[in-house]
């Protein structure tokens, strides 16, 4: 080893001059506070269970109305009454072949104007 390097004894002598920590004296008190906090964190507060809500006074009338509309729907369907609400194929054909003309846009208006000129 080089003469410039420290020997083991010299290193030990230097290490004896290293800094030493200042140990806090109130460590135990602060630790006691910390475990008190840790304990309090372990307690989990559960909210009180809510009481089951009573059924609303409107529940029965609403159920009755829904049931009535269902019954009417079944009755209408079962008697074939639903077909009268729509136009028959013949009526649709007649409506489609009508000569009534109602202009529906600017192009139709120019076409009508040209027809009138001739």
């Amino acid at each position, binding site marked *: 080893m080089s003469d*410039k390097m420290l020997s083991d004894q010299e290193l030990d002598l230097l290490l004896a*001059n290293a800094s030493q920590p200042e140990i806090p004296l109130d460590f135990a008190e602060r*630790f006691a506070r910390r475990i008190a906090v840790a304990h309090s964190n372990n*307690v989990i507060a559960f909210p009180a269970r809510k009481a089951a809500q009573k059924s609303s006074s409107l529940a029965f009338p609403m159920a009755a109305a829904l049931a009535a509309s269902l019954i009417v729907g079944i009755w209408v369907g079962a008697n074939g009454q639903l077909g009268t609400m729509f136009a028959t194929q013949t009526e649709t054909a007649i409506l489609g072949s009508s000569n009534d003309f109602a202009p529906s846009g600017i192009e139709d208006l120019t076409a009508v104007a040209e027809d009138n000129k001739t």
Partner: protein
Amino acid sequence: MAIGIEKIPVSMNWQTATDAALLEASCRHNQQAFSVLMGRYYKDVYRVVWRINGGHVDTDDVTQETFLKLWSNPAQIREPAALKGWLLRVGSNLVMDRFRQKPMAEIEAADNVADNALAAPAIIDQGYVAKTIDRAIADLPDRQKLALTLVHFEQMTNIAAASAMAISVDALESLLSRARRGLKEKLGPQGKMLLAAVEQGQ
């Protein structure tokens, strides 16, 4: 409170109780017994943690966390005679884990960490010697630093230090040897100057 604290007779003197008795009482969450146990070892843990983390401000927090781990489950200590070694191992592991997670910039920004750019003063005083040695120790790898701390600063035997680090005695001696060689290389020729200043001051 989630954990019950044991009520004990006032006349009970825990100061003279053995570690085994204190641990047993601590298992029943006896705060007085645990307090005595902590009083016996917290300075050792504090010094080792301080040395490993280079005097960082987190030393107190890490030491408390070490005892919090013991308090939360004292029954994990199978051998009461090995309590000190367990505490030192847990403390050093905690500080190594914590510093591994933190960016180095934050660590170096701490006030208590030795300045890496110490300029040699005209007259080398004791403070400069101490800071230079602290910095050289702080630069060692963690395991080497721990081995050096336990054997040199805590005056533990190689067997006790190896047990505390959970390694073989051969592995400990290897770490020690590398730590000492590393220190000599880091201090370099400046080491002789520091030594001269120390001898002059004595």
